[in-house]
């Protein structure tokens, strides 16, 4: 589980911002928002342009750092534009079966690492300073990785400038995981498994109407009538009553329709809410792996309030252990009926993230109307 995340000098976060998933307040209600003493369902509010999406991108950064692959196309400015510091700092603290693992690194840009460091159970395992080419493999033995031929890694670092490679500084952690035979109980394997199963899903923007080819795989999976029925059931349960039909066209393409007296093409006619919901389904439900962490950005931007509730409750039932961080502007969800004051957060204009129970001296109780309190300014100092 991810226990803490700290970020600095990234996009709009000039100063350090921290999410402490272990900072819970012992409420006896909505206990399904907590798993193993860690917040597993978090809902973040904040005024427009406070950085809710950026925070999600930052949280998921470890995925790309550890697993490589094409970093998502992000043309925006990487470093904070008001800071003179040259790198953005990321720090992740995990807990795996009683072991604490801290992986922190700094980046000059989306492509280039400045340094990285791994600490397990308060022991520094390695430190790499790519800027000054100083590599310190302090205690690889502690994680049973002493067999790693670090010379070859250093060699690979020493490439000429003329060679064009995608990522000039290959993170040592990534190299280590793929080049050393680690025990399956190893914390590194656990870390890698966690990172591999992280996802960010953005619902509230133009991504909704995807180019047709991106839907091909999805449509193909729907040829299985049970799958199609499952999607239909999902839509119905969440609040969209419809009947779906998949047809194979003469040219081999597949097309999804709403079943009426006449067939109505799905993607051309579906409402924004329906498309957003299908997008969520497509990204989450048919996948074969169990997600460890999901950042659902503006997940309910197009949803009726009841559908937003249905989706949250569904996610809680379906992914009880998965750490799901959601952002929303829908204050109707700011309620103790299915959330709790230590899992509801406000991201402020100054880049601080505060849970509701820490945003007032008042003792928050189950009976409190959190939405009304938020609107009337109870947490004003932290907005």
């Amino acid at each position, binding site marked *: 589980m991810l226990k803490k995340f700290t970020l600095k000098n990234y996009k709009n976060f000039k100063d350090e911002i921290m999410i402490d998933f272990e900072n819970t307040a012992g409420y006896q209600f909505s206990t399904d928002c907590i798993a193993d003493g860690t917040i597993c369902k978090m809902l973040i509010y904040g005024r427009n342009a406070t950085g809710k999406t950026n925070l999600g991108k930052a949280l998921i950064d470890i995925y790309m750092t550890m697993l490589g692959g094409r970093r998502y196309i992000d043309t925006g400015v990487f470093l904070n534009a008001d800071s003179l510091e040259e790198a953005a700092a990321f720090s992740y603290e995990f807990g795996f079966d009683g072991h604490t693992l801290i992986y922190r690194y700094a980046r000059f840009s989306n492509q280039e690492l400045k340094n990285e460091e791994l600490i397990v159970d308060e022991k520094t395992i390695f430190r790499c300073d790519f800027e000054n080419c100083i590599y310190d493999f302090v205690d690889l033995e502690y994680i049973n990785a002493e067999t790693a031929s670090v010379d070859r890694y250093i060699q690979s670092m020493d490439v000429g400038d003329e060679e064009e490679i995608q990522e000039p500084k290959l993170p040592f952690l990534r190299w280590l995981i793929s080049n050393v035979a680690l025990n399956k109980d190893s914390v590194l394997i656990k870390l890698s498994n966690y990172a591999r199963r992280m996802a960010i899903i953005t619902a509230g923007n133009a991504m909704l109407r995807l180019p047709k080819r991106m839907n091909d795989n999805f449509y193909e999976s729907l040829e299985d009538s049970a799958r199609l029925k499952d999607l239909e059931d999902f839509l119905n349960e969440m609040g969209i009553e419809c009947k779906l039909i998949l047809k194979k066209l003469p040219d081999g393409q597949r097309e999804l329709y709403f079943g009426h007296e006449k067939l109505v093409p799905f993607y051309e006619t579906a409402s924004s809410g329906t498309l957003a919901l299908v997008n969520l389904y497509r990204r989450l439900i048919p996948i074969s792996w169990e997600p460890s962490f999901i950042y659902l950005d503006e997940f309910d931007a197009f949803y009726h309030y009841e559908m937003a509730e249905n989706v949250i409750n569904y996610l809680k039932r379906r992914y009880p252990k998965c750490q799901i961080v959601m952002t929303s502007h829908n204050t109707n969800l700011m309620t103790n009926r299915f959330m709790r004051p230590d899992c509801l957060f406000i991201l402020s204009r100054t880049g601080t993230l505060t849970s509701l129970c820490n945003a007032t*001296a*008042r*003792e928050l109780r189950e*009976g*409190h*109307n959190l939405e*009304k*309190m938020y*609107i*009337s*300014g*109870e947490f*004003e100092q932290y907005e």
Partner: protein
Amino acid sequence: MNNYQGEGRRRSQNLLIVEGNHEKNKLFWLIFKCFPEINIDMDEIWIYGTNIYQLYADIVKEYGEKWAEENDNIDLPFVVSKKQCPDMLRYKEDFTNIILVFDYERHDKKFSEKKILEMQKCFVDATDMGKLYINYPMIESYQHLRQLPDCDFAERKVPVALQPGKEYKSLVKKETIFRSIIDFPQKIDDLPTAKYQLADWVTKQRYVLTNQTYWKYMRDVFQQAIQHNICKANRIQFKQYDIPVGKYKESFERLDFTEILKIQNLASKDSTVGFIWVLNTCIFFIAEYNFTLVMKQREDYTYEAQNAT
């Protein structure tokens, strides 16, 4: 200059609905001074003086006779502002605290068990629709302690026959240990011109520290008064005055103002032999805000206060 900005919204306001008695404003003034954690600026408080039955009538006017039965979502800032300043309507969405403080006033000609019960049932949350605190028999009951601790407080009651309110006030004045300690800041406040001179003198004499101790001392007094009243409410509702150390919060959370009101109504029905349990609920606002304010660091304050005097 642009003209994008419309009329700004003022949030984080506080509404205190009282009977217009100056004492009450002073009580809350003192509470907010002693408990700065509550973070309410006295200037931010909007005080509306009215009688509980007048307020009831105003609610009926806006929401109809059946407002209580129909569980209407009553917007008191709206009701009050519509009457007081119809050009500048206010809504509860802008208020973080709505507090109603009324005397039980059994002897009031307009007294109605039904109405007061409806009000008590409806107004239960200061952060939402508002919270009604009824003081038995009157606001002065918070001072009705003869010593600290005062074990006799458990059975302290006043006969219904003791009316009008003046009688009770003078009784409290006679019996209370509060008078001497509470006078100090009130005097400063009562002398607006001398206030600044005095403050200046206090600063020069480096008496600021003593002054600070005064608030801490009063905080301790309030904490004790609240604890006494929690015990008393427990006595009324559950017939058990003493609460074991460490169980105060639990006991406090079990209290039900509506049940207490029903018991008081029953006890005071008879105008000759009836009685009213002495109980002040409005100081429970502090306990409700954050219970740690009631129990925390008592010893320190007492110690400091004793040293200062």
